[in-house]
């Protein structure tokens, strides 16, 4: 797997969400992703970035265009230094939320992208990595 383009964005306020989504769209358009796949990726990104703002009051996102076996895709890595997640498995379940939300953020985002990885250390922070390939599989 090789990285073709790489960029980092700081997310500290809710006003950063829309510019961030536009940047993700820019990346997805660059590799010729179809509209439906773009929408899925951006929606997942939006969920994750909201989580980051809500629970860790911000963090950074690394945006990359990657290529593997002649297929290109977009990889997003969300890194925060928030309180972390005690029970990752539980947080990945539909309808579970410690806040007042619908609890669709993490599990919903996982359903929208091709690859989803989460690691979290309580007290240190959470890292979520998602990959969506050009053809959506």
């Amino acid at each position, binding site marked *: 797997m*090789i990285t073709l383009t790489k960029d980092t964005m700081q997310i500290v306020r809710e006003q950063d969400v829309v510019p961030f989504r536009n940047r993700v769209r820019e990346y997805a358009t660059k590799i010729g992703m179809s509209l*439906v796949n773009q929408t899925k990726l951006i929606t997942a990104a939006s969920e994750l970035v909201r989580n980051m703002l809500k629970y860790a009051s911000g963090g950074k996102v690394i945006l990359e265009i990657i290529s593997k*076996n*002649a297929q290109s895709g977009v990889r997003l890595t969300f890194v925060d230094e928030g309180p972390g997640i005690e029970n990752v498995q539980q947080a990945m379940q539909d309808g579970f939320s410690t806040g007042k939300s619908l609890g669709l953020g993490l599990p919903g985002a996982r359903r929208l992208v091709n690859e989803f990885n989460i690691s979290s250390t309580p007290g240190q922070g959470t890292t979520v990595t998602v990959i969506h390939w050009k053809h*959506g*599989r």
Partner: protein
Amino acid sequence: MDNNNTAQLLQRKKREILESWMNNQLADEALRDDLISNEELRRQSEELLEALLKAISNGNFENVYSSEYEQITDILSDVSVTRARQGFSPRETNMYVLSLKQALTDTLEQERRNQPEVLYREILMVNKLLDNLALTTFETYLKGREEVILRQTDEINEISTPVIRVWDGILALPIIGTLDSSRTQIVMENLLQEIVNTGSSIAILDISGVPAVDSLVAQHLIKTVSATRLMGAECIISGVRAEIAQTIVHLGIDLSNIKTKASLASALQLAFGMLNIEVRKAGNSRSLK
């Protein structure tokens, strides 16, 4: 340290290796000069050899997964995927790497004529490395072929999901064959787009041609119905056969929120009712008036 020695020797002999490799390739009966020109082959070969010599310059002949070999893996992937698409056979594709092995061992044999132990060790090492690379080539070759198959599947999917405008405001979509997730995706996209294009408010999904409905297929159907509703249109599922109704109930799938009909005709009738359309025989209506 010994490895570095070998790497330097090969670096010095680069020209000769390339020549002998080219000769090997051109001499082999598996050469496909109808598919690739000699100039193109030379350019490809030179690029790969250069990358290989760079990769081994630190004495790493062992670990092809390390960062030094990234460029090689990329070039090889590129070459084999392209060749798979162009219709090269596996043998013809792998010959490319294996003939480089021949060229490398030939060169070592000449240079180390007086040091049999060194030669033995080096040949083993080079063999192992090139075998590894050949395996990589073969793997990506197969992936390239899989891609061709996937693309064809896509094309078949595309063809096999027509959206028909049966009436003003009513669309019908006959599904034939198994409904898996990628197919559902295409069905949904086509259907929703057609709803927008025609401004239709009812869509009939006919599943007479779906061999079996398990919980996964049912889930896909439910998703399609939900998406249609989000757009502001209603979805009717028709063509539900007896055995399908049985499995649905036995599996405990809840379709109570979805309008289902046994045949396309009765679904159409329901749709007419929903749109307040009356259809009757011309003679009949005249006699009424």
